[in-house]
């Protein structure tokens, strides 16, 4: 499955985990109708952590990270992001959403806006940044994901890998403190997976707090400081990547790893 190898080894020197709590999830449960998708999730994420969430499809990993910016509502338990608890209070929700960036499997760029407009929209309308300044910030991040020359094109004119890098830049323009990645490379051709993963590695090298749902185990080994394995809506096992891959404890994890590696 993870046939992509990265060209250079990630520089782990800047990837420091602080003891500040970024996300605190306690006793969280969620149901879709009568179906119990997430069961008793307890998870504390510290600032600077790079967490990879793995598991078979339908295990609730996407749902878990979508609860963190309340694209999905949980019914029981607490989710506290950067000191703000997620409740039905929309003000808190919008506050959390502007601090947490999200990258989707299908990019979800706005097709009617240019790349630059995609990147400046939220800073201008949510953060009230002046247009000029927002454009400068956007160009800075577009350079960082290595596509400044596409700024005035529309998303439909870009390749999948380029679109996903724009989506990352768009999230970064809001200066988020946490980034969520929901299978960011699953919809991409192998040639393009690499360019997206490299962007994510460089982000990790700058100390961004990241939660990634991905099947790219190479990325997990290279960048993550913690791998979480989920099955049937529960966290089955979590460990440092080295231990996780070389010495899995639960039978379910062993089976999963034997199938994908």
């Amino acid at each position, binding site marked *: 499955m993870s046939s992509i190898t990265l060209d250079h080894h990630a520089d782990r020197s800047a990837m420091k985990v602080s003891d500040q709590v970024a996300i605190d999830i306690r006793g969280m449960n969620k149901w879709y109708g009568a179906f119990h998708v997430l069961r008793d999730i307890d998870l504390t994420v510290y600032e600077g952590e790079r967490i990879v969430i793995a598991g078979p499809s339908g295990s609730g990993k996407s749902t878990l990270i979508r609860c963190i910016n309340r694209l999905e509502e949980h019914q029981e338990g607490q989710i506290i992001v950067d000191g703000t608890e997620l409740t039905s209070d929309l003000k808190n929700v919008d506050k959390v959403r*502007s601090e947490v*960036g999200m990258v989707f499997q299908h*990019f*979800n*760029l*706005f097709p009617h806006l240019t790349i630059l407009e995609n990147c400046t929209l*939220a800073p201008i309308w949510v953060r009230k940044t002046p247009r000029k300044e927002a454009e400068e910030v956007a160009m800075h991040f577009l350079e960082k994901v290595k596509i400044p020359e596409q700024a005035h094109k529309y998303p439909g004119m870009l390749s999948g890998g380029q679109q996903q890098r724009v989506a990352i830049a768009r*999230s970064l323009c809001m200066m988020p403190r946490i980034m969520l990645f929901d299978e960011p490379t699953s919809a991409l051709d192998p040639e393009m997976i690499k360019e997206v993963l490299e962007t994510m590695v460089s982000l990790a090298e700058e100390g961004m707090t990241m939660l990634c749902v991905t099947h790219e185990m190479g990325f997990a080994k290279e960048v993550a400081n913690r791998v979480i394995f989920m099955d049937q809506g529960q966290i089955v096992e979590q460990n440092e990547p080295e231990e996780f891959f070389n010495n899995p404890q639960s039978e379910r994890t062993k089976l999963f790893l034997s199938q994908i590696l």
Partner: protein
Amino acid sequence: MSDMSYVRSDMLPERTPPASSVGFVGWARANLFNGVVNSILTIVSLVLIFFVLAALLPWLFSPTWNSGSLNECREILNGHEGACWGVIHERWQQLLYGFYPNGSEAGTVDQRWRPNLAFLLLFVAVIPVLFNMISRRMNWVLLLVALSYGAYAVGGTLGMITVVVLLAAAVIVGYKAFSTDKAARAAEIEAGAKRLPNPLIFSAIFPFVVPFLLWGGSIWVFVGAALGFVLAGLAYRYLSAAVGSLAGMIISVLVAIVWWLFLIGPFASAMDAILPIALEQIESRKFGGFMLSITIGVVAIGISLPIGIVLALGRQSDLLIVKALSVGFIEFIRGVPLITLLFVASTLLNIFLPPGTNFDIILRVLIMVTLFASAYMAEVVRGGLAALPKGQYEAADALGLDYWKAQRLIIMPQALKISIPGIVSTFIGVFKDTVLVSIIGLLDPLGLSNAIRADQAWNGVVWELYGFIAFMFFVFCFSMSRYSMYLERRLRTGHK
């Protein structure tokens, strides 16, 4: 087996396509003579077109323009087939303006410049909304030129002075837009766009200018009507921060209603005492012809789109009561024929209103046609909303945009773009449905044509009148259809 191995050593250069597949020859081969059956069909069609034109053209170009009655036409034609265009020549003004005062009756003045000016201003108002190829500068020039026509029509010394002033202003504002140096022109457009006020300001005032021009009366009534919106806007702006956006919205609507119901009368009479500006009042029953159709059509088209959007959003809302109201309204209106609604407007509504209230018939018809169009518009817009992938909503949410911002910046621009063909179809349908008002006794072009045919001089004329009306409707509807295709092309950004 060793033959399988092959390595290309040099890449082939591009070549031009064969001559028979490009140019006119290539086009004709591909589109007209592509095979035996197609060639036969092409020739048969050409023969058919020839016979139709051979019969139609002499009929169309018959020398009857100046005849005064059907009998005169027959004398001129002397037994030949031909149209009797005298009826259009004699009655075209009636077909366009109905019985709007044209100065022919003793003691009246020709007032037709008012609908003319309103029609000109319509273009000035919609151009900045519909097109982006015309500069701000040009738009203000157009406005000044249109207004100078109005001043010319009013006449008198003051009118002539105004014409000169307006045209001078147009030249001053516009001379740089006509510079022969292309680069200078582009630079001027760029710079002028920042210095001149946005022409959309006029587009916003336009809805209050037109009823003043068409119906006349004191200008302060219409200024007051516009002020109601301004007051509501101000109330919302300063109160929403204090009491929340929903409460702010409700309060601002109440402010506007109170203003319109109770305060507008005193305001208008007070201002009339200070500065009386008024046009001669024209009664609704004098409205007719294409002027009436266009008035009803433009109002219904202009107002039904925003109402339709609100209804479509209401129908998708999580708020139960909002949703129930929207669904109820849409389903009720769609379940009832337009003619029924028009009958309600013309007869039943008066029974329910308190005795003595005089509620203008055209206004009643306008409300009914607009509501009717809104229900259809809502469903068309809902189709566009349904076609948007869920990811667009999620991306907007994930960036922290609130509901209204997400709708305005992300969802609606895309949903409306998807719905353009449906929206324009609804517009065209509404415009054509305006002829139904002839059934409740308003003199739209069809109603007038019946009146004209009842005249002894033109008794028996059919094709010429209906052909002319059909042609006029075709011009309007076809323009709308072409515009929708232009808009789709303009908004295409290379995605599916």
